[in-house]
């Protein structure tokens, strides 16, 4: 990689994602913090048999979770409806409403998509560990539950824990507020969420930002994701 990581278009940014890739998709679940344009580009690009890793599997359409009234949600559902997803790893895969299933739940009930449910904090920590070179860690979360079944268990200080593995992906599609050309990122508010840990844990991290500012345009004290973690940045306001 060179130090200028800006890419002109969303299409170009995702062009080399192959069939079968594992892809982390940032955000918490709402309209903020999610790489919508990269997802739209990935639908157009058409890679299939993908594994997607995220907090949700696209929950906004049925309930409007985190979306302003009147706006049409765009999220993982567009990839699922396009038949590109083989497996989902998520903490919050389905709609909050039993009566209003999301695209994932319908596909899951039809047996088309595999699911791994991971507690939200364990998911975040597994991703952080994947980025930090920690192959595995013990956590009390999930011990003694169905999500702890099949995992090694061990007692520390009288408390049961389970062994969880660090998680990495081939690509991370993340959403930040601003970038400089070398990939220092800042976020806005609760948009940090899964974007920050995911940025560290993929072979190729692609950031969708509102704006790429000039070199030095981001205060060193304010950087949320240091440039070392970022491979490509693409701006919503670019001249495409």
């Amino acid at each position: 990689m060179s130090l200028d990581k800006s890419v002109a278009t969303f299409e170009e940014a995702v062009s080399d994602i192959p069939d079968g890739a594992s892809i982390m998709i940032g955000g918490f679940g709402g309209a903020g913090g999610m790489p919508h344009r990269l997802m739209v580009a990935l639908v157009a690009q058409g890679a299939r048999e993908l594994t997607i890793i995220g907090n949700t599997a696209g929950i906004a359409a049925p309930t409007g979770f985190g979306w302003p009234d009147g706006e049409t949600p765009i999220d993982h559902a567009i990839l699922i409806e396009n038949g590109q997803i083989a497996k989902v790893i998520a903490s919050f895969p389905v709609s909050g409403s039993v009566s209003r299933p999301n695209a994932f739940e319908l596909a899951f009930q039809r047996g088309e998509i595999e699911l791994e449910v991971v507690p939200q904090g364990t998911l975040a920590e597994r991703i952080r560990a994947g980025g930090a070179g920690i192959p595995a860690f013990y956590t009390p979360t999930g011990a003694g539950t169905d999500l702890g079944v099949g995992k090694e268990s061990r007692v520390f200080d009288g408390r049961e824990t389970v062994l969880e593995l660090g998680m990495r992906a081939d690509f991370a599609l993340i959403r930040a507020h601003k970038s400089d050309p070398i990939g220092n990122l800042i976020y806005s508010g609760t948009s940090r969420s899964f974007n920050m840990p995911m940025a560290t844990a993929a072979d190729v991290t692609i950031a969708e930002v509102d704006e790429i500012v000039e070199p030095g345009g981001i205060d060193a004290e304010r950087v949320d994701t240091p440039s070392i973690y970022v491979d490509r940045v693409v701006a919503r306001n670019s001249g495409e």
Partner: protein
Amino acid sequence: MSMPNDPAPRLEREIIAMRVAKEFQDGDVVNLGIGIPTLCSDFVPPGVQLMYHSESGVLNCGPLAEEGKGDVDLINAGGQFLKPVRGMSFFDSAEAFAMIRGRHIDITVLGSLQVSATGDMANWFLPSRGVGNVGGAMDLAVGAKCVIAAMEHNDRTGASKILQECTYPLTSQGCVSLIVTDIAVFNVDKRGLELVEVAPGWLPENISDVTDAEFEIASDVKEFELL
């Protein structure tokens, strides 16, 4: 919901929240789940200042934004828009859960599908659906210093949500230390349940009639204490 043999009305969700809020101490860091727990913030006792934590990645957050004035980058764990307040801070999901798992949250209030006599909680998976959202529930249940279950006593079919053993998949074992329902308050520990308060017009035997778990009755059992 009410049942045919109820001796008196069941309490409103707001009253449950009001009772829970009595547990908050000045300076507590609090995480409120979706539903009844969210209502607790409306009933914080005078003189008690809390620091609200949300696993969406914001600390010391404030009330909901006014209708139509939401910022997509300022949401709570339920996807609702929050009003910006001074003293907030933002952080990523790994940090949000480091706070939870690392025992930095004093109290979490969670709704639940079931709670067992020894404080097991089951609130993430409804077997009839076959798929569920675990979200942050397991982390909160194991991580918070105090876990309060705030829920209706019986479900829509009248079944007791307090059981000798949970029948739904667990969220965490032995995590609940207080249950507040629309008719009763129980202390919980490994030895079992202790009924400490009842709704007006309810006697301990009325509670027993609609509860599928054994419980002790506190020697000084009283009516719901809201002040």
